């Protein structure tokens, strides 16, 4: 038998020291912010029925879900996303249209990626869902929250890119093409594959909608895109989508967030899932979106109770992989205690005013001073059996005097 015992599966990872600290700091900052803004944590099971994720017409391919068979022979999956379970909880346990419910989570999802492509299979996602309102204000709130959340993750040079699924949908519906062609057009738009898109739209080339669709692949950038997009939108529905984005932008701008906002009107990933605005977060130096979100008014209906909802998720792994992790933190103080002084040592340890403290495991004072030097500690407190307390402070060369 091959010795797998010392390996971990492809796509998983162990984290140590600085990386764990960075991760915990980011998670704490996010939790503080979500809590402060009135969000409540929601915890759902890691394992759920396979049916739950199929029910929604979710476009995630079957082979990307990890499956487990339970005692009764039913198929379970390690959750591949967190929004679906939250929609399930809402539609089965809350069912309350009178209020907006704000939830947040920081949990792991599991996706069986391609082997040897460097993809991670266990990913920490931090996200929010606002369920129960289709208002402009909830879209506004969720986008501004996305900006704050990426700021809390301590990444620089990021932006949120917004699109509107209604625009593509309304243009596409005018072609009255079959599902297969529609999917082809969607895929080429997503890939910004201009040449192939033109080929697919060739049979419709005399229609204004087809000409607008070919232009969508290049409709990304700053605020000016909205102006350009006006020329594409000639019917009421697509004009409304652009009005909506315009209004969103002017509110975000008035809140001083304009620098973080861009647009991509060719944003059509998972178009059957999103029903209104869609957005992605990008950061300098990270080759994939760090945040994905949008409005998904149809999702809870899959579980028997229709409610509008919006939210986003941050891929914590991709952020961690690109943040330089701090060095191991050094203890400010090391406490050396002799027989009978353990209680006093614990008292010093518990006093948070002393900063980061460690107990010495050495039996001699020399040993402790040596340890303090290796660990770069600033101070050594010695509690001797005779009841004395001595303090050694490191000079600039790290020597204890």
């Amino acid at each position: 038998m091959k010795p797998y015992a010392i390996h971990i599966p492809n796509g998983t990872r162990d984290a140590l020291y600085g990386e764990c600290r960075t991760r915990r700091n980011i998670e704490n900052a996010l939790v503080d912010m979500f809590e402060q803004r009135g969000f409540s944590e929601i915890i759902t099971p890691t394992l759920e029925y396979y049916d739950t994720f199929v029910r929604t017409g979710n476009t995630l391919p079957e082979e990307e879900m990890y499956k487990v068979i339970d005692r009764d022979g039913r198929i379970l999956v390690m959750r591949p996303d967190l929004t679906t379970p939250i929609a399930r909880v809402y539609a089965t346990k809350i069912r309350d249209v009178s209020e907006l419910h704000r939830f947040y989570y920081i949990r792991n999802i599991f996706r069986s990626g391609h082997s040897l492509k460097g993809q991670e299979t266990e990913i920490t996602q931090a996200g929010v869902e606002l369920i129960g309102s289709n208002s402009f204000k909830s879209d506004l709130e969720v986008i501004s929250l996305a900006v704050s959340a990426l700021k809390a993750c301590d990444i620089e040079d990021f932006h949120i890119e917004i699109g509107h699924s209604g625009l593509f949908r309304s243009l596409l519906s005018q072609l009255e093409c079959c599902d297969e062609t529609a999917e082809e057009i969607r895929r080429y738009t997503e890939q910004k594959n201009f040449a192939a898109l033109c080929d697919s739209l060739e049979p419709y080339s005399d229609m204004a909608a087809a000409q607008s669709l070919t232009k969508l692949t290049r409709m990304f950038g700053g605020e000016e895109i909205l102006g350009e997009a006006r020329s594409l939108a000639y019917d009421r529905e697509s004009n409304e989508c652009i009005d909506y984005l315009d209004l969103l932008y002017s509110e975000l701008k008035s809140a001083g967030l304009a620098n973080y906002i861009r647009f991509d009107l060719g944003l059509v990933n998972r178009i059957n899932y999103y029903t209104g605005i869609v957005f992605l977060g990008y950061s300098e130096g990270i080759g994939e979106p760090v945040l994905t979100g949008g409005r998904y008014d149809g999702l809870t209906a899959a579980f028997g109770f229709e409610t509008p909802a919006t939210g986003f998720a941050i891929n914590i792994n991709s952020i961690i992989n690109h943040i330089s992790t701090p060095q191991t933190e050094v203890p400010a103080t090391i406490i050396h205690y002799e027989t009978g002084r353990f209680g006093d040592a614990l008292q010093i340890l518990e006093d948070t005013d002393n900063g980061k403290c460690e107990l010495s495991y050495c039996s001699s004072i020399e040993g402790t001073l040596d340890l303090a030097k290796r660990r770069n500690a600033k101070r050594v407190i010695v509690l001797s059996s005779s009841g004395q307390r001595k303090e050694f402070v490191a000079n600039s060369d790290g020597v204890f005097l």
Partner: protein
Amino acid sequence: MNRLKIALTKGRLEKSAIELFEKAGIDCSPLREDTRRLIHTLPTEPLDILLVKAQDVITYVEHGVCDLGIVGKDTILEHGNSFFEILDLGFGACRFVLATKKGEDLYGKYRDIRIATKYPKVAKNYFEKMGMNVDIIKIEGSVEIAPLLGLADAVVDIVETGTTLKENGLQAVDDISRVSARLIVNIASMKINRTQIMEFVDKLDSVL
């Protein structure tokens, strides 16, 4: 301004890509020197050129360590996942075909047929679309031999003129798809370096 990194497929596509760049007024003189360097810095453009194998172009672009890449559609169909495929560069044109021994009736058999190919994913997708159940065997080179030796009933392979097929007694029975070199862009880089990338794209597009 960031320096962009572009990964070129070594070999046949590399030559045509450099010709295209020069036609677009991009000085590629460092690539004309006979060196074993793998990364070349262009003197007049904020562009670094990397010469790598076709599959690696996709890997580097998907991970975002290269912003752009030039790679054949054949490699994209077999190994591609998520990036923008923004230009069809036209060169490196060939096609994927299904070919059998001359005179063989592929569809009249009462058993699953066996397909030899260097491109198992392309073959699998094709037969799924055709609604046929087939047994696919991966062969690393000269797949034409497999039907001749009786290992497979047919091959899915890439052909330019069809001469190799003909000389080995095979005939194309169906066209699967057209293949040529493509310019691909990392999804995040496209958004972050928009102006720079679109300028480069337009520059190439204008001489295509």
